[in-house]
């Protein structure tokens, strides 16, 4: 609103001087009582606002208050004292992490973790993203409802296992062998060994003690865990295609590949685009639990991600400020990616995710 001088004062011709604008007095009055009006509205609907209170309090206390504690990454002391009592170190932790001033070793570890974070999700995108789409197309081929339900129940199942159960299974299936107790390596290691894909020494040393295999094991177990479940969204798009579209294509002489190209793909493209953009948006938000449960010092080279770096140094270790600084940088870039992805998704398809 543009405020002009005449809003407040007008020239009174009778007395020949400027006097207060009476209209403005009313406006002021409304303005002054604005909050009262708000309060009235809130009071009228007080039950509705009361319902919001517990949720807001929980989010404030345990989601937003930690963000205030992020100030710790600008502060110098390394104990868990109240954030407000500490000395500011400015950006020195950030400088150490990024450029290695003061501690080259930590900086190298940070960059390694950052690279691993990106690579783990990037490979997940490349190898993991197409699988649910293909599974959804396959589900569509099964005409019997009972058979399809059985397949769906089975393939969704791994998603409901805990990370601890899943990683325990993985660890057991590729576990190391031992000569003294006669323990043989895990059953998957033995299978790969008999196929000639890995050597006996590798199988005995344990595949998860070997940085070469970490990424592959991470991705394959990830696909096993969530490909079936992730296909739900795509299957909903495929099943929505009207059977007449297929019939029309068949009459025109389209084979299966042509039907895929001209009937199915256009129908599910928008879903694919949205899911792809979401995946790209969350490239840096990698679940730390799974890495934490699968990795060990032998595999840090390929397995250590930013959040596990922060866990080791900040929770198990005592470099709290430095560890928060590392995660903060990761999460800010991650947030920009998510916001960017959501904006693009909105533009591309008139739908937004939130």
């Amino acid at each position, binding site marked *: 609103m543009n405020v002009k001088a005449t809003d407040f004062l007008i020239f009174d011709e009778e007395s020949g001087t400027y006097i207060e604008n009476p209209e403005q007095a009313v406006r002021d009055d409304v303005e002054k009582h604005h909050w009262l009006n708000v309060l009235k509205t809130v009071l009228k*609907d007080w039950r509705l606002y009361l319902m919001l209170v517990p949720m807001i309090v929980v989010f404030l206390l345990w989601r937003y208050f930690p963000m205030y504690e992020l100030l710790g990454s600008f502060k110098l002391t390394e104990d868990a004292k109240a954030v407000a009592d500490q000395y500011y170190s400015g950006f020195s932790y950030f400088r150490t992490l990024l450029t290695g001033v003061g501690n080259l070793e930590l900086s190298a570890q940070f960059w390694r973790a950052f690279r691993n974070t990106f690579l783990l999700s990037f490979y997940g995108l490349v190898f993991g993203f197409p699988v649910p789409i293909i599974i959804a197309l396959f589900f569509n081929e099964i005409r019997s409802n009972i058979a399809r339900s059985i397949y769906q129940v089975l393939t969704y*199942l791994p998603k409901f296992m805990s990370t601890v159960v899943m990683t325990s299974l993985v660890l057991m299936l590729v576990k190391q062998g031992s000569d003294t107790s*006669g323990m043989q390596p895990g*059953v998957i290691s033995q299978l790969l060994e008999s196929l000639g894909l890995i050597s006996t020494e590798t199988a005995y040393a344990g595949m998860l003690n070997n940085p070469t295999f970490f990424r592959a094991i991470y991705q394959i177990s990830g696909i096993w865990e969530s490909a079936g479940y992730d296909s739900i969204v795509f299957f909903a798009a495929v099943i929505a295609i009207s059977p007449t579209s297929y019939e029309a294509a068949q009459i025109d002489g389209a*084979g299966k590949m042509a039907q895929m190209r001209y009937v199915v793909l256009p129908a599910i493209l928008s879903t694919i685009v*949205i899911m792809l953009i979401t995946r790209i948006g969350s490239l840096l938000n990698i679940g730390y639990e799974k890495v934490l449960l699968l990795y060990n010092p032998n595999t840090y080279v390929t397995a250590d991600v930013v959040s596990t770096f922060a866990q080791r140094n900040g929770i198990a270790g005592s470099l709290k400020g430095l560890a928060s600084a590392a995660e903060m940088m990761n999460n800010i870039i991650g947030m920009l990616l998510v916001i960017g992805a959501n904006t693009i998704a909105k533009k591309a398809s008139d739908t937004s995710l*939130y």
Partner: protein
Amino acid sequence: MKRKLEVSELIFKLISYLLLTMFAIGCLYPFIYTISSAISGYEQVRDSTIILLPKNIQFDAFRDVFNDNVFWNSYTNTLFLTFYGTIWEMMLSVFGAYALSKKRLLFRKGFNFFLVFTMWFSAGMVPQYLNYLATKRAFQGMGIMDDKWLVVIAMGMQAMNIILLRNSFENVPSEIEEAAIVDGATEMQVLWRVYLPMSKSILATVALFFGISRWNGYFWARQMISNTNEQPLQVYLRLRLEEYSDPELTTNWQMSHSYAPDSVIYALIVCSIIPILVIYPFIQKYFAKGVNMGGVKE
């Protein structure tokens, strides 16, 4: 008239069945392997000769797990966390989502942003850890010594689930609500009698999400619950795994046991997933619907 399948269609159908069957077997196999290994004898597990079916069957691993008080403690703790955690989260989320779904709510955009922002940006592990530690001290100051309540109350609210609920509540036609209000229903009655019955599948889905993530919760429970008697099952399972992952442990093991140490882990895995396997088929029909319904907002 039924049309004959063209060759390419037939081939694709065959490939679909083949690959899906393989994938479904792959999803199921680890569980069968787990059960078989839990009840197989020492030598078979040691030599990794179990492929599918159990060999030299024993139930001593299960018996010893069941005779362990710490196991039952952890099982009860997980039931406790899941039960109260799900109720707590559902209560907050349903009330919050209901209020947010109302167009007449003042600062509605602001509240929505308040939620969504937590999905974009999280403070990270270390500040959260310090925050939970401070909460723990505050709880103890109030006389709540049991860390389980800390886990129930402070952890696990997920903005995504609230948004799923909100989107679903927004789809309830406002005429029905108006009719109920004309009939003299209060806000609570509208929520209880109109909204909840009309959103059954999304409620089941969200409750399932909350319940599963509670049942499966590990990291923060391990960090925050200091008393061994209060630890949930997942933490107990992981601790046993770490204890038994040392292959040298098994050198003198055979003297006193008829089963391999691995069988204990497998038996624990079985115990930990059985409740999910029992509940899952009943809820499955709701939740595929729920996932599709609330996800994308027009």
